[in-house]
């Protein structure tokens, strides 16, 4: 996949992150977060873009298989409610920065 295909964040973009699955798949463990680019600083937006690029660059390392594994669902919404880009990333292949972002929110993106 060429770099040009990578989604680019705009001021109107909203990035949603949620965790799913696991033996204890309970509603409260999903902790969905939404990051509206409009509310982020330029630096935070750049770091969010870098994370999306990183997820995109993972290519297809293959699912580790098995059962009761947790995955992160990352969705990019531009205008409208239809996601323009969506990825499921197995927890074991998840970039640390994504985990931090899901855990801590925009604070994980720095200033």
């Amino acid at each position, binding site marked *: *996949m060429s770099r040009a295909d990578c989604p680019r964040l705009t001021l109107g973009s909203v990035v949603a992150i949620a965790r799913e699955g696991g033996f204890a798949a*309970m509603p409260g463990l999903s902790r969905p977060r939404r990051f509206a680019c409009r509310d982020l600083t330029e630096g935070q937006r750049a770091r969010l873009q870098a994370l999306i690029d990183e997820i995109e660059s*993972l290519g297809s390392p293959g*699912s580790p298989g098995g*059962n009761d594994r947790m995955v992160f669902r990352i969705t990019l919404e531009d205008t409208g409610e239809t996601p323009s880009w969506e*990825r499921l990333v197995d927890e*074991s292949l998840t970039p640390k920065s994504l985990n931090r972002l899901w855990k801590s929110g925009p604070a994980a993106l720095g200033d």
Partner: protein
Amino acid sequence: MTGMPTSSRLTAFMPPHVLERVASHGNARLKQCARNTLQADAQFRLRNASRPSARPADSPRPGQVARYIYTANRQQTLPGSLVREEGAPDSGDVAVDEAYQWLGATYRFYWEVFERHSIDDEGMALIGTVHYGEDYDNAFWNGAQMVFGDGDGELFNRFTAALEVVAHELTHGVIEREAGLIYADQSGALNESLADVFGVMVKQHHFEQTVDEADWLIGEGLLTERVNGRALRSMAHPGTAYDDPVLGKDPQPGHMDDFVQTASDNGGVHINSGIPNRAFYLAATRLGGFAWEAAGPVWLDALIDARLARDADFATFARLTIDRATARFGGGSEAERAVTQAWADVGVLP
């Protein structure tokens, strides 16, 4: 960028079971993408599986369990360092010793009740890793071994604390080998349900509980006292296991009328499993005595039946259990009637 995701983007991180469905049912472009990804996945798995020397010895003879318990030392590397192997005394590490004991109880259940010799019925070594990750609220089967987190301590205790959790994960290995039920939608919920059904039966067998004495809870003792809940799932009354400000309310349905349509968690495999879970509970309690005497063998017969397809839905499995109840106990038998009635009661069969 606008519009729907392109097919190549969609398939890049799809789990194999979804890809398999796409490869067989999707449009031409999607099919090719799915096939390419599946090939890459197969190569990936082959690379990671081709380390025979790393795998400890299987059981030397039927009836003898072969357990190996490792610690991940709060990292996420598998299997980690070996702490206790078959025959070794208590390690003093409670998670290690629980995993060892519960894997033993699960092996014993499959052997004593069904004469099944481990996960593959060929004496496969039982490998468990504890202390996986930091504050990790999960347990899973990775296709080769079982993995248990310590829990975060706030909401969850360690995942080895409940026998049925260990038995649930081991049973995923049995299901994978026997039926290979695709882990999405109804076949995925069926996969989850079977892991719960045999998990709860292992618990009842170990503690010698009749169907009336048993609590039919999955993950009892996993939730800390801060949580308003008894367990993660209730097979007797799906949807009633917990109702907590932080964890939310147990979303499991116990009837097809309440089947949950969702994309999340592979189509809600841990949610809709409540329906077949309750069917098993109803059949077993109607028959009385010990669950592994009549209902259990019928469910195992259906699980290992060659006619059970990888993408089987609830109704297909239900008809198979009735068929196997008839074969085992006779037409018009109490077992046949109880199983038939159970599936009707949860709305899976008319």
